[in-house]
């Protein structure tokens, strides 16, 4: 690919004054790509207070940190962020841009791509460099995770979103050198077309799904809302959280935020207990990182048994009550 685009840019995210883990993970993979390309690694940080995070980002692999202390950028706004990222990229001409597959990345990357005319692959699980052709090779699940496609971009910038926890951050290296550079551009607030007027936080009681060591997940086979209380009981006994398939969320048996899978949450607990769910790839891709998967399904052919470690073929309604009872005994509750 003949062009004058150089260097790898990570689009950084900050929460409560700190660089979020996914950004450090992107710096790690970004570092590797930049080294393979023989180019530099840039990081972009937006919002008040980001300037003082630059030095830290350098210890995690960045060569140059660009930041804007503009107040208007404190909260994510799709229109403003797209504008700022677009004008920055037109000036700096990165060859590669990496985003987290996060609320921000999933919105910003496609819009920026639409404006700048690059090539974007979302939800990448692996990135590498074709050293001869000097282009980015991206691997991503397609068809709900039934297949993995290898994608290249014929345009620059070559862009990718990457799921959190796909890569490990680098060890902090205090001897690394780099530059921290302010972006001086003034932002015109009239660029805001879609305005956020409210934010509704979904209250979770108990353990947070993404952080739970045990997840008890139910699907269509659970049949109704009431039955899910039994799953909740099991989860509580194990100090875990409940999750669900899209079917269970669609039916309104559990809130939409408990959906696990390709288009829901990705969890990697110690133990994942899958009950009355078939194990569609689109669901499995959200829990494949689990250390130990237990499946209860009345269909011995269900795909969940292809990924589970321990399984029982039968009706969960006959298994769950004695399971809960026995756990109570064992735990002395």
């Amino acid at each position, binding site marked *: 690919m003949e062009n004058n685009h150089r260097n790898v840019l990570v689009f950084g995210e900050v929460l409560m004054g700190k660089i979020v883990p996914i950004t450090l993970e992107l710096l790690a993979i970004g570092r590797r790509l930049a080294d393979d390309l023989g180019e530099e690694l840039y990081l972009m940080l937006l919002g008040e207070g980001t300037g003082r995070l630059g030095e830290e980002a350098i210890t995690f692999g960045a060569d140059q940190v660009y930041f804007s202390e503009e107040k208007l950028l404190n909260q994510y706004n799709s229109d403003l962020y797209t504008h700022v990222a677009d004008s920055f990229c037109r000036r700096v001409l990165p060859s590669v841009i990496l985003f987290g597959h996060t609320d921000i990345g999933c919105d910003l990357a496609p819009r920026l791509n639409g404006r700048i005319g690059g090539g974007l692959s979302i939800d990448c699980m692996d990135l590498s460099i074709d050293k001869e052709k000097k282009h980015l090779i991206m691997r991503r699940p397609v068809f709900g995770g039934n297949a993995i*496609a290898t994608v290249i971009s014929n345009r620059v910038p070559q862009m990718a979103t990457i799921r959190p926890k796909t890569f490990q951050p680098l060890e902090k290296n205090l001897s690394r050198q780099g530059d921290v550079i302010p972006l001086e551009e003034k932002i015109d607030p009239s660029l805001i077309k879609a305005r956020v007027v409210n934010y509704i936080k979904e209250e979770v009681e108990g353990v947070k799904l993404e952080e739970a060591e045990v997840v008890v997940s139910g699907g269509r086979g659970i049949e109704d809302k009431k039955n899910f209380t039994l799953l909740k009981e099991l989860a509580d006994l194990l100090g875990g959280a409940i999750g669900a398939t899209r079917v269970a969320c669609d039916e309104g048996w559990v809130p939409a935020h408990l959906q696990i899978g390709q288009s829901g949450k990705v969890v990697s607990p110690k133990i994942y207990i899958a009950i009355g769910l078939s194990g569609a790839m689109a669901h499995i891709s959200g829990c494949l990182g689990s250390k130990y998967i237990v499946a209860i399904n009345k269909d011995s052919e269900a795909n969940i048994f292809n990924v589970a470690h321990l399984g029982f073929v039968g009706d969960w309604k006959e298994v769950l009550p004695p399971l809960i009872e026995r756990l109570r005994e064992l735990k002395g509750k």
Partner: protein
Amino acid sequence: MNIIVCVKQVQDPEIPPSKFKIDPETKQVIPPAGVPPVISVYDERALEAACRLKDKYKAKIVAITIGTDKASEVIRHAISMGADDGYLLCDPAFESKDSFKTAYILSKAIEKIGAFDLVLCGRQAADWGAGQVGSILGEMLTVPVVSFACDIDVVDTGLRVKRVVSDGYEILEVPMPCLITVSSEVGLPRLPSGMRIMLARKKPIPVWKATDINIEHSLLEKGHEHTEIIGLVVPERKSECEIIKGTPKEAAYEIAERLVSML
């Protein structure tokens, strides 16, 4: 209110993984025999969102799709759900997996349809799932874009959109015309009535070729793709599941003991 909904026909994503087959040479997926293609899930929910607006306000819904002649089925499905009209964009030159091409073709069709207040797209397709056609289309149409909507309503200033974020929802206000991508949290789509199914069956579905929508053919030629799929594999998953034998109660006790030993 004039609403345009972009929909796509896809291979049924709900076939069991064991039936999923690919041809690694051509990097194509081999459709399973006897399973008819379906409308992509998120697009169906985009239609549902459009129909809900039409239930409440005076609205006209037009559905468009790019596909083979078989894809007129998804337009009929859209009409059976509540769309007023639909067009099939069908031309060998349209064959592509490139999001920019897709968005470009859609933008030209929308230009031909005329004035619109709202364009709705699914957040991503159920097959290749590139997740960007809506956003690119919004940029091409130079209208504001809101992504991952689960609820849309009309307010003085335009539309009020509830969008899904990882730990809750954002409420946004956006002027019209605009483009909104729709997420599955909209909820289940309506079941078409028998009468609407009849109506959809009788409705003529106009077919537009590249020349009908003033497309610059050179832009569709090979080599203009922004991204290219150079490999396709089915990940190998070997089953090592230990199946517990015995009665449900025995199994329950066994599972309980294993769980406790692991925690």
